[in-house]
């Protein structure tokens, strides 16, 4: 098992290298730094000098992958590829267009993101599993039928509607909570309640239906019939036998998103004015701040890969077949 996990971690390295190459190609080869300078400075009235100055200020005045004019190891290190892409591996993200330290921003903004994303994740999981269990327990009844109908209807509604509608109702009509904003410490609860509720409600449709399918699939299996043949009650069959087996695909499916919770939610944070990584990313996209977007792409994949490794570990925890092999 130890070797298995170490192997998964080692496998992450070529993937990160791949991600790095993709982002490098996307950001520096599709459009050259000259293009970007022209873009940032306004395409119309731009002088070559202004472009050079813009590039020099940001360290884009180096050759892409090979610096023939430099000496020694600088031939490789004095390049955009090394300075801007390879250094991501040590989490050296450089500075944003408005000259702020990106790594510092990320460290500061991670926590508000987590404060929103973690409750959404946990409460959502609990609510969806409960709802799915209810539907599975009362399968082929009216509750099940209308439950599925409600799920399909709910997953047909745009997230934007949940957010806008929720804000309108809770803040504007009922004046329950502030419409947006954020504060540190316990005060944050006031601002977080509404986005958490909206996040949970928005996810119910798709997840519950998926879990219900998993439960029903398990309930059709032979061992469930065996359990019933033992005279166990339907509740014991569901909780001791079915739930434990169905949790394997559910858990391993959700574990992968746990690290990415740090990245927060793009939509929620920007609508509710929460200063997390999600709104940071959106602002960067809208301001066309490529350094920030590039850093977020990289750190996003790092989180995802950590999630994959956690998934593998969680398999070994919940599934004895893998733990004991």
């Amino acid at each position, binding site marked *: 098992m130890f070797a298995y996990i170490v192997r998964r971690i080692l496998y992450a390295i*070529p*993937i990160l290298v*791949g*991600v790095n190459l*993709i*982002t490098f190609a*996307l*950001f520096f080869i*599709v*459009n050259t730094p000259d*293009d*970007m300078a*022209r*873009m940032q400075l306004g*395409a119309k009235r731009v002088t070559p000098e202004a472009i050079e100055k813009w590039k020099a200020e940001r360290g884009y005045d180096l050759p892409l992958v090979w610096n023939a004019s430099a000496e020694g190891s600088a031939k490789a290190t004095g390049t955009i590829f090394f300075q801007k892409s390879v250094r991501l591996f040590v989490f050296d993200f450089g500075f944003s267009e408005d000259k702020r330290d990106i790594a510092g921003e990320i460290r500061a903004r991670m926590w508000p993101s987590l404060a929103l994303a973690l409750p959404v994740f946990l409460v959502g999981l609990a609510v969806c599993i409960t709802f799915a269990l209810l539907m599975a327990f009362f399968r082929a009844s009216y509750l099940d039928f209308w439950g599925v109908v409600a799920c*399909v*209807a709910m*997953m*047909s*509604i*745009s*997230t*934007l*509607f949940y957010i*806008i509608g929720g*804000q*309108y109702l809770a803040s*504007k009509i009922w004046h329950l909570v502030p419409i947006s904003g954020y504060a540190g410490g316990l005060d944050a609860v006031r601002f977080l309640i509404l986005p958490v509720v909206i996040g949970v409600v928005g996810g119910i449709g798709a997840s519950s239906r998926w879990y219900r399918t998993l439960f029903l699939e398990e309930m059709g299996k032979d061992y469930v019939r065996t359990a019933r043949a033992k005279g166990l009650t339907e509740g014991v069959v569901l909780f001791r036998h079915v739930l434990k087996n169905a949790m394997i695909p559910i858990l391993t499916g959700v574990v992968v998103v746990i690290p*990415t919770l740090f*990245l927060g939610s*793009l*939509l929620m944070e920007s609508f509710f004015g929460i200063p997390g990584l999600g709104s940071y*990313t*959106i602002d960067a*996209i*809208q301001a*066309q701040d*490529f350094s920030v*977007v*590039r850093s*977020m*792409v990289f750190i*996003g*994949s790092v989180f*995802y*890969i950590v999630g*994959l490794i956690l998934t593998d570990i969680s398999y070994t925890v919940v599934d004895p077949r893998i733990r004991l092999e």
Partner: protein
Amino acid sequence: MPVILVTDVLVWLLAAAATGYAFYCRRHPHLAVPWARVFRSTAAMASVVVLGVYVALGLLDSLHFRPELEKKDGEQKAYSSEVLSVLDLALSHLRGRSEKTYSAPLATRSFAKEQIELPDGRQLRDFPRLRFGGAHLQDEGEWAGDVAKRMLTGIAVAAALLFLIFLVMKIIRKRRPEIPWSAAYAAIAVLALLAGPAAALSSGYHVLGTDKVGQDIFYLALKSVRTSLVIGTLTTLVLLPVGIALGIAAGYFKGWIDDVIQYLYTTLNSIPGVLLIAAAVLMMQVYIDLHPEMFQTAVQRADLRLLFLCIILGLTSWTGLARLLRGEALKLSQLEYIQAAHAFGVRDTRILARHILPNVSHIVIIAMVMDFSGLVLAEAVLSYVGVGVDPSTNSFGTMINAARMEMAREPVVWWALATAFTFMFALVLAANLFADAVRDGFDPRVRM
């Protein structure tokens, strides 16, 4: 002068391919049987009607041309720089009648107060009468009566039409009694009873109000349909060949080919989807902005951006399908009929084409219809984030994006948002219900 947009061509090709596929299915029982099962579902029949209306709108909106300008004597024929579609032509009464700014549904006066110059030269701050909405009314007191009259007319026309359809249905029902025609009829009835009054009212009012620059919201919503359909279908068109080829190859050939393909999709998968799309779209945007000489008209530029968005979405989302197909091909390649083919020395290409591909086709179809609704929803989100379609393209995303700030107004401008969400909800719900029926119909666990 006809204008041929790239997405137009693709949309019509897709429609032709779908028709061809339908004929192909009729002759192949392993496809005809599951499809017949799909159409026996009431939910599917109702959603087919709704989807059909959307598709018709989308197709009409995919025939573009530039109208001829009125000839001044002796001059050559000249064409407007504006690109219109056949749908625009049908809705010309909606398109042309812009107000100054916001107005509520069926309103006769503007939403915002303005300085109005009275005939006697005095200035007054009041809600001005609209240029078109209710302009035919001499006295605004007639409003209620006029609206009611128009609605009744619309309902009467719709009812007459429904009666005709009812007669036709009776004949069809006898020929194919197993199909739930009543569900389809109910859907048609609901649509007709909504569309009839809407059409009757729209000749004199803005049925769903106007937006910030005074455009008719009903018109914008109808125009947005095409964008949703294009994104929902062309994206799958891009994703299918990549997903199928790589997925099947990985599962069938195994070994290093499998390793490479798995590495490829794990890497792509590990970049958070929105970020990858955002990065790619930003780069495309820079490229388009810096090369304005490549596009004749703004519409063509916006269209190309739409196409690129589809390609980017497709190239970032083939991984799910590929992983599914890899697993299935892996399972199939162990099956005995594949081994029997090996025992005949049948070549790999032929095994892939004759044995593997037909036996994963149900997964491809299910994936295609399941993806559709997700993509329609994603368009709205991406447009909100700023990496969606061109701001000049009509889409539900741009509509929502333009209207959401107005929720802070007092009183609220709700109609643009409500319209966009309702149209989108109907489309996505129909697509989801249809996808469910397709999945049930093609579920391999149901023995043929």
